[in-house]
Every structure is written in structure tokens, then in C-alpha cells.
């Protein structure tokens, strides 16, 4: 049976207010705000600039992963409208921000996805596509590996584990097998192949309520196992900690893991991770053009600080470069253990 989004299920946690209430009322020994206050980055965490321009183009996805922080799925239809796409690409093209990071849902399902990639690449940006892999096995999108290679796009794809049971438990039945097929298609055009310069990054996040294993050792395991058992290659692996929001929060609640998991994140708070957390050098653009410190804040409807411009339509990078970051208790997810960000471990 296809899993429904929290929205389609009319689940209370489909409401961002309910998610925030849940996270704010957990009996933690210390709020994240206080934890940051006790570090060299306190009392308020601030941005260091904008080096990554990340846009979330919509909620529609061909998968419905159990842990999805976007609550994306085949039943969602919301996509970034044309006026926001136009404004977003104008800002990107007029800026010196080096990295253009496209995410979703499945971003490839946006009607103007290829135009976004082409214009980003033409503007000299390093374009990243957060691709779920299985989309590449559908007839309509089978041409994308070659398209990505042409524009030197970095393909960033989730694969929580190097075997079928771990992957399918989190991402749905049959996803592992299709992901391997998609990896073969990417390898065939040079992705992950040494010397090609085409970067294929895998993202591994825990299949459950625990912290990711050390990134380097996981990368070595994945490389060995995927090559040996399936003959596929990738460039690098990054680990990401599951963020206690949206569908993952719903699973934590349902499995009785919410408090133990949050306590684990709090107990593993590592000040050494803070310097490189993604919110400090990223701006996240929402479907409606609103600006956020990261994709997680976007999903909790926590816009950028009031002193910074609020939407893509009133972009002012000088103000965004030095903005105060909006933090809540979910931010423990990025600062636990080895740290976690869209670029992987930070410590």
C-alpha cells in the first residue's frame, strides 16, 4: 500500500505549529538556545555569509519515505510557481553565490527543473541536485543522467544503507533495487567514476532512532559492499542525522522513541560541530519565495530573523550575510556527535 503524507492523513503533526509545540514542550535538560549560549558562538548564532543557495521546489515526490522531513509524496501536488522560480533564478544569476542546491520532494518533477539547472550552470554555479535515484528509472526522466553530466551537476542521493532491508525499511519496498539500477545509469555516464570529475554523493542517515556511524567508516563500508555485491560506484558518502520533525517525528512518537532520541541528541551536543553547521552559510528558499536558514526550518515554518529580508522578492544579501540564525530544539540534530548538515558531518 502506498504510504500517505501526514497532510493526506490529516495527522496532527501535519501542522507545523503542532510539531513546534511538541518539540518545545519536551522535558530536555537544556534548550538548544541555552546550549548555543554556552559556546563561543553564543549568545546568538549568526550567519557567516551565503555560499549555498538552496531552493525547495515542491512537495511532490514519487516516493514516500518514512522519515521524510518534507512530508513529500505522490499525493502532494504543491510546486514552486512561476513567479517565484523567475525571481529565484534572477537573484541567483545576479549573485556571486557559488553553489546552487536544488531539493524537493523530487525536484526533477518540477516542470522547470531542467531550466533551473541550465541557468544555474550557465551562471557558473556548482549545481547540486538532491535526487532520490528512483526517479531516474522512470521513462520520462531516464535521460537525466546524461543531462546532469552535460551540466556537471553534483548528484546527491539518499541511500540509508548498503543493503535492501535497511534501505527499503526507510524508503519503501523496491527502492534499493531501483536505486542500484539508477546508480548503474549514473556510473555509465561517468558519475562516481574516478577521473571523470562528475561528483556522485551518497547520503546515509540512520534507519531508526540513533546517531549516524562515523562518516569515514561508513563510506568505506558502502564503497566495499556496493562495489562487491552490485558493481556500482560513487564519489563520496556523507552522513546526516535524522531531524526530529514531520514524518520522522511521527515515527518517533509512534514507536515511543521521541524522548529517548531527543535526550540522545542533547547528551551528544558537540560544540565543535557548530562552526560548520549549514545554516551559517546557506539560505533556503521556499516554494512561496520565503527565506529560511535551512530546509528544516523551512519545514517548521521558521522564517529567517525579522531583521533580515523575508522573501526572495526583497533579497538583500548584505543583510542576509550577517543575520542571526533562528534556532529551536530540533537544531540539536545538527550538533550531535560528529555533527550533521546538508554537506554531512561537521566535526
Amino acid at each position, binding site marked *: 500500500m502506498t504510504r500517505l503524507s501526514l497532510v493526506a492523513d490529516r495527522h496532527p503533526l501535519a501542522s507545523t505549529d503542532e510539531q513546534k509545540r511538541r518539540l518545545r514542550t519536551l522535558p530536555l535538560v537544556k534548550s538548544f538556545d541555552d546550549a548555543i549560549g554556552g559556546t563561543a558562538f553564543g549568545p546568538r548564532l549568526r550567519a557567516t555569509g551565503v555560499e549555498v543557495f538552496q531552493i525547495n521546489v515542491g512537495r511532490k515526490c514519487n516516493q514516500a519515505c518514512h522519515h521524510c522531513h518534507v512530508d513529500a509524496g505522490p499525493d502532494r501536488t504543491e510546486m514552486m510557481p512561476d513567479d517565484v522560480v523567475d525571481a529565484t533564478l534572477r537573484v541567483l544569476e545576479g549573485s556571486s553565490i557559488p553553489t546552487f542546491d536544488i531539493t524537493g520532494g523530487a525536484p526533477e518533477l518540477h516542470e522547470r527543473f531542467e531550466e533551473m539547472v541550465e541557468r544555474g550552470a550557465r551562471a557558473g554555479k556548482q549545481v547540486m541536485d538532491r535526487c532520490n535515484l528512483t526517479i531516474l528509472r522512470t521513462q520520462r526522466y531516464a535521460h537525466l543522467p546524461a543531462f546532469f553530466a552535460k551540466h556537471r551537476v553534483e548528484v546527491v542521493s539518499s541511500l540509508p544503507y548498503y*543493503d535492501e532491508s535497511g534501505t527499503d525499511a526507510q524508503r519503501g519496498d523496491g527502492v534499493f533495487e531501483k536505486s542500484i539500477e539508477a546508480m548503474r545509469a549514473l556510473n555509465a555516464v561517468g558519475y562516481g567514476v574516478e577521473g571523470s570529475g562528475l561528483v556522485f554523493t551518497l547520503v546515509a542517515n*540512520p534507519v531508526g532512532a*540513533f546517531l549516524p*556511524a*562515523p562518516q569515514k*567508516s561508513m563510506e568505506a563500508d558502502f564503497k566495499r559492499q556496493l562495489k562487491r555485491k552490485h558493481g556500482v560506484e560513487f564519489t563520496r558518502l556523507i552522513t546526516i542525522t535524522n531531524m526530529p520533525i514531520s514524518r520522522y517525528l511521527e515515527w518517533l512518537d509512534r514507536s515511543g522513541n521521541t524522548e529517548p532520541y531527543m535526550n540522545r541528541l542533547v547528551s551528544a551536543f558537540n560544540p565543535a560541530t557548530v562552526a560548520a553547521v549549514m545554516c551559517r552559510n546557506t539560505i533556503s528558499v521556499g516554494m512561496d519565495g520565503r527565506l529560511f536558514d535551512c530546509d528544516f526550518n523551512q519545514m517548521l515554518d521558521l522564517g529567517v530573523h525579522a531583521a533580515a529580508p523575508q522573501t526572495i522578492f526583497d533579497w538583500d544579501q548584505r543583510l542576509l550575510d550577517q543575520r542571526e540564525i533562528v534556532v529551536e530544539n530540533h537544531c540539536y540534530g545538527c550538533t550531535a*556527535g560528529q555533527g550533521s548538515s546538508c554537506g554531512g558531518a561537521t566535526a
Partner: protein
Amino acid sequence: MSEHNHYYDPADLKKFGEVGKNAKELGEKFFSWYGSVFAEGALSEREKSLIALAVAHAVQCPYCIDAYSNDALEKGANLDQMTEAVHVAAAIKGGAALVHGVQMRNIVTKKTM
């Protein structure tokens, strides 16, 4: 035994650090050594975690089983590997019992015609 009246309380695991109470210097030495034991060395952190998990089962310590089930997951081990580790512990425990049968056999051989 009721749920609230038993020898082993999962919440007590968090009190592990208190074993140094009344013996501060010994406690500090223990935890310093303990930390070094589990650091990456000739064996990886994951291998050490799986050994710890196996030993936890052999000594039947519920605190240790809790701690090292979680730790092994966070070191990237999967349930297949963890289950095999428990079987290693069981094999050694079982083998240890069985090999004592030699002693039993020696005694019986000596005592009987």
C-alpha cells in the same frame, strides 16, 4: 516482580558515572582507561563495540546490552552482525559448558568400573 520493584532499572544506566563516588581517583582512572579501550586502534570502534556486545551477553549484563546495542548501531553495525556477535558469545558459553564434560568424564571414568 512488579514493574516498579525490580533489581535492574534502565534509568540506572545513566548513573554509570557514579561508580567513581567514594573512590574518585580510581573512578577517574577507570573511565580514562575505559575510553582508551574503546578508541579506534588496531581494532575499529565498530569491532570493539561488537565484542562488547557479545561480552555483555556472555556476562548477562542488561545495562551493557542496552548500552552496546545502541552503540553498535551508532557505529554502523546492522542486526545481522549484532546477531552473529551474540552467537559468538553463545558458542563460547556453550562450548565452555560442554568442554567441562571432559572433567565429568574423567571423574566418572575414575569412579566406575
